[in-house]
């Protein structure tokens, strides 16, 4: 599932000094510095929220209705008609923007990752609303007064501006809904930008695919374990004929009848067919490269002991290594 957003709000909606400049709109630092909150509508009920926060697998402190996570995110849940929305922000400004001692966190990226983790834990898409999901990115702006906002919008030929209250202005631009909002105790407005993203997986053909069996060409146990570890496999266990691990929340069981044959693979608790297939392809690619590396080193080592020499060595564009050996 991809939630990478292509649509940042236009620069002028955030800062009056910015023009409608592509560079400003697409500038990651600009987006990162101004994005202050992500509001996500979910299909989660209270018991789901409690279960998720208890099983996140990262440190999590609960204080004043907010969860403070070990990855630098702060999550607050609010309910509407029984379903919960998540308000995701950074714990503090320093964590968000970084200083000498702390890394910069990209709120959008971490927010995506958090929801991917939720999906994996609950084994379903936690955000779906009739195959579309709606969530909001909230950016801080430099607008102090309502008339400044309205003036700026009119300058950019935006019509149908609806002023709800002193502190809330709604409008539509490029078919997207926006809302300027200001907390009563704050000086500056922030802007909520509606994001609509189509879902592409989790449910495939209307059916949840939970498990599947795959024949592999993996015969080398050590290289297979190395490849799995490189892909972040958890709970890795093995004996002569079997390898068990967890990858991206799914259970992988490799088995074979003798130590020379290729492994058969059974995958259980599949989170998404697409994620699973991509992972299988990555594993196959990485396993091949690891085999290539081992064989290359072995040939180079053994050739020293024979009456042979490498006459030429080339690496082609597709990463094939070509060795020409003079037999002496």
């Amino acid at each position, binding site marked *: 599932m991809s939630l990478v957003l292509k649509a940042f709000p236009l620069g002028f909606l955030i800062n009056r000094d910015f023009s409608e400049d592509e560079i400003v709109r697409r500038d990651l630092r600009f987006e990162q510095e101004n994005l202050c909150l992500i509001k996500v509508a979910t299909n989660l009920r209270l018991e789901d929220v409690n279960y998720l926060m208890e099983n996140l697998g990262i440190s999590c402190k609960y204080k004043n209705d907010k969860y403070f996570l070990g990855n630098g995110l702060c999550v607050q849940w609010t309910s509407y008609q029984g379903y919960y929305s998540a308000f995701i922000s950074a714990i503090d400004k320093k964590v968000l923007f970084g200083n000498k001692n702390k890394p910069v966190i990209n709120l959008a990226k971490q927010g995506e990752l958090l929801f991917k983790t939720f999906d994996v834990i609950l084994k379903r898409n936690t955000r779906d609303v009739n195959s579309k999901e709606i969530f909001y990115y909230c950016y801080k702006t430099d607008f102090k007064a309502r008339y400044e906002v309205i003036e700026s919008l009119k300058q950019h030929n935006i019509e149908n501006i609806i002023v709800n209250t002193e502190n809330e202005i709604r409008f539509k631009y490029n078919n997207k809904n926006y809302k300027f909002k200001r907390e009563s105790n704050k000086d500056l407005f922030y802007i909520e930008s509606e994001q609509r993203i189509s879902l592409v997986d989790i449910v495939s053909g209307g059916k949840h695919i939970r498990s599947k069996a795959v024949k592999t060409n993996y015969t080398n146990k050590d290289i297979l374990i190395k490849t799995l570890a490189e892909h972040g496999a958890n709970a890795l266990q093995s004996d002569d004929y079997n390898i068990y691990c967890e990858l991206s929340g799914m259970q992988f069981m490799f088995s074979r009848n003798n130590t020379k044959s290729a492994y058969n693979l059974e995958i259980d608790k599949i989170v998404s067919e697409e994620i699973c297939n991509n992972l299988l392809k990555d594993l*196959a*690619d990485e*396993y*091949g*490269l*690891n*085999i*290539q590396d081992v*064989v*290359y080193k*072995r*040939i180079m080592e*053994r*050739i020293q002991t*024979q009456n042979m020499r490498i*006459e030429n060595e080339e690496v082609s564009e*597709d*990463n*094939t*290594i*070509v*060795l*020409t*050996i*003079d*037999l*002496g």
Partner: protein
Amino acid sequence: MGKLKIKLMPDGTIEMETKGIKGKKCLDYAKVLEQLADVKIEELTKTDDYYQSEYLELDDSQHLSDNG
């Protein structure tokens, strides 16, 4: 003497070709590859070289003395 051209593919498979080795002798080098890379040969394709006889090139003096 001949040469071996070994291709290590990114998918982990290996291809080998012999160069300048005529006749059935080229098959012996499949074993060389097995020993060098510790692999099992799954497929062998015979090229034109396999069907050619190995011959010795003699210089003029050898040729004359042979003819005695």
